[in-house]
């Protein structure tokens, strides 16, 4: 491909101007994580100390009088981590032997694409590209293709997916369509198999077929969409249809979804937005209640007999059992963003997921997490084999990974820039409304010079109301709101977070 491109450039003639810009940064992030004593999950694989070094560069070339644009946005990461511990009986920590995890160098291309404009109103893009049509700030329920991003840092996450994107922009409206082949195999951050599986099985299947069975088939895996967008009465309107054919973890064939997003400014400073996805069936992982209901934690040779019974019978206790449901499961996000004269921005968003866990379903999941956490701490199981349901997409490390599980969430955000000119303060709260558990984050950023930025981050999970009342020995705490109750202890969605706190210091130098 590259030699052909060079020939193209030579053939374009000496008159063509080539505009090349390179932007990038070097950053070092040091992270301290304090594991949680009360989380049902085992923290034996959660490093308490982690260093992440990143070198990132964005290359943009405009050629042939802007008819051809080449963009490459790549990053190289090196991760060093260590110091592990696990809770014992919820009372104290026991240091876990060194995991001997080597430094993990990784190269990720967030985007790499060619964009061609043969006519004024026609753009064709081929390559890896991040396309987001939704208007949500913390979450995008209509974004089914891109890797999930950190909802506490709305400016972070650039990774896209391979696609062919065709756009026809006009004054006031635009038409778009894309075809995205699924990445079936990836090596060193570069797709090794697109759309269909190759002749040879993946390396991990060759090395350990019991844990990683050969996933190959003879079918095409892709997603496609058609979108119309318009500016009508000062409102951004996007309407699109998305079709998924065995793409990623969604094994449905030719499954259509409809999506809508709106955004408008009111009274000059208040922006309101909405994002809606309507889909049939759900790809959410759910626990088989028969594997965890009324289970008895037994001190005998077979603890948790129901769960172990499922494992012995070859039944995974967790699966995507509603993929083929003939039921509509909408996901809706509505929010506002208020921008004040001093630069302060306040964001409020509500997320509703029809396929989110009900109280009973969350109870099953929380029970499974608790059982697996106990078995892991006792060294009886490797949770990877029990819970493996597919490959994870390799991408950029995120500061915080949050995937809302229950039905109702509230996100509140605050940002105040230009404090003493160069400081910016951010705070975000993510709250599960069924139990009022949440995660609070805060950060201070200092733009020391034009090219140097220092950031300090903190993440703290907040207990659910029932959990807090239980800790205060309030009678009937488990009946307050809608938590899970495991072994008599209420558990909210974010009570299960494996850390009690996390701090992060990041230094970033731009060039």
């Amino acid at each position, binding site marked *: 491909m590259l030699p*052909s491109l060079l020939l*193209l450039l030579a053939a374009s003639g000496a008159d063509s101007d080539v505009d090349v810009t390179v*932007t*990038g*940064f070097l950053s070092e992030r040091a992270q301290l994580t304090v594991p949680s004593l009360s989380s049902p999950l085992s923290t034996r694989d959660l490093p308490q100390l982690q260093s992440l070094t990143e070198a990132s560069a*964005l290359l943009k070339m405009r050629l*042939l*009088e*802007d*008819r*051809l644009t080449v963009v490459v946005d790549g990053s190289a990461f090196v991760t060093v981590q260590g110091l592990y511990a696990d809770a014992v009986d919820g009372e104290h920590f026991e240091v876990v032997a060194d995991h001997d995890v080597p430094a993990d160098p990784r190269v990720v291309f967030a*985007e790499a694409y*060619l*964009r*061609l*404009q*043969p*006519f*004024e*109103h026609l*753009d*064709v893009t*081929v390559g890896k590209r991040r*396309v*987001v049509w939704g208007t949500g*700030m913390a979450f995008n329920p209509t974004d089914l293709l891109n890797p999930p991003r950190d909802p506490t840092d*709305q*400016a*972070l996450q*650039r990774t*896209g997916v391979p696609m062919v994107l065709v756009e026809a*922009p*006009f*004054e*006031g409206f*635009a038409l778009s369509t894309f075809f995205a*082949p699924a990445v079936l195999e990836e090596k060193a951050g570069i797709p090794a198999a*697109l*759309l269909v599986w*190759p*002749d040879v099985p993946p390396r991990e299947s060759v090395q350990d077929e019991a844990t990683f069975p050969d996933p190959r088939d*003879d079918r095409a895996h892709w997603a496609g969409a058609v979108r119309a*967008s318009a500016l009508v009465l*000062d409102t*951004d309107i996007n309407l699109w249809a998305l079709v998924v054919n065995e793409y990623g973890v969604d094994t449905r064939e030719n499954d259509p979804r409809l999506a809508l997003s709106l*955004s*408008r*400014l009111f009274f*000059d*400073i208040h*922006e309101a937005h909405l994002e809606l996805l309507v889909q049939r069936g759900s790809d959410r992982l759910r626990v088989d209640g028969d594997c965890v209901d009324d289970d008895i934690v037994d001190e005998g040779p077979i603890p948790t007999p129901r769960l172990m019974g499922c494992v012995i019978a070859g039944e995974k206790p967790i699966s995507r059992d509603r993929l083929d449901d003939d039921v509509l499961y909408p996901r809706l996000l509505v929010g506002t*963003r208020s*921008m004040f*004269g001093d*630069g302060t921005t306040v964001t409020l968003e509500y997320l509703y997921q029809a396929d989110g866990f009900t109280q009973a379903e969350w109870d099953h999941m929380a029970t499974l997490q608790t059982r697996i956490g106990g078995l892991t701490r006792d060294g009886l199981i490797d949770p990877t084999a029990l819970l493996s349901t597919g490959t994870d997409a390799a991408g950029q490390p995120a500061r915080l990974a949050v995937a809302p599980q229950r039905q109702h969430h509230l996100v509140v955000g605050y940002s105040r820039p*230009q404090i003493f*000119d160069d400081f910016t303060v951010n705070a975000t709260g993510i709250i599960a409304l069924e139990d009022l558990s949440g995660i609070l984050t805060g950060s201070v950023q200092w*733009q020391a010079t*034009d*090219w140097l930025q220092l950031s300090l981050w903190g993440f703290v999970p907040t207990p659910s109301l029932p959990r807090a009342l239980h800790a205060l020995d309030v009678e009937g705490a488990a009946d307050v709101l809608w938590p899970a109750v495991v072994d008599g202890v209420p558990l909210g969605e974010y009570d299960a977070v494996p850390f009690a706190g996390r701090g992060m210091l990041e230094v970033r130098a731009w060039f």
Partner: protein
Amino acid sequence: MSLVRPKLPGLLALFIAALAMPAPAAPPKKASAPAPVVVATAADVVARYDQIMSPPAFVAVMEMTATREDGSTRSYVLKTQKVGADKLRATFQEPASARGQEMLRVGDNMWSYVPNLKRAVRVASRDSFMGGDFNNGDVLRVNYTADYDATFLEGADAGLVCAKLTAKSPGVAYDMIHLCLTKDAAAMPVSAKYFAQSGKLLRSAVFSDVKDFGGGNVRPAKIVMKNEIQTARQSTMTWSAFDVVDGIPASRFVVEDLGR
């Protein structure tokens, strides 16, 4: 197992064939500046100001420098493109930390494109522009004829003709402006004062360094905007290039084109 793999060379052939197609609209061509508006009415003051500072279509490169109370500065270089009365696009070129950010205005709508977010979000007109003393409206709403009604301002200094501009809608940058031009054939902008609805003076500007940018396009190359609330602060906008053009493709002023 029968497998089919996509052919990359075929894709490249598609690109080569596409490049052989008719070219899109050529880049904007420079145009000569029109004959100056003769200032006879208050509306002519505004029209002449727009003719100089915001021609119907232009491409410009400017540097905005914000000076703080302690004397330290922060500078941004941006390229701006404008067409018509209400379409303007600003692209940040420096510093490196801001490179790639863009802002777009279409009518009463403004968006800011954040490279790390890979999308545009709506912003308010009166938000401060990059923390300086200009606001978004100062940079993106540069057509006063469309946004303000004008009457003559009494008591102007000799040698100046001044107009009082009143906002037509709440979405513009300021509720009231006092704008002064030289009282000669050139009618160059000299100074301006910007007020809140209460009448409180918010900012004052001085236009200077008049130069010829080519094609008869003579205009101030520098605006110093003083903060009348925090009086130790000011911002300077300096143009290094200002090309009046015959037009810019409308596709450059759609949200989907931001970031390209």
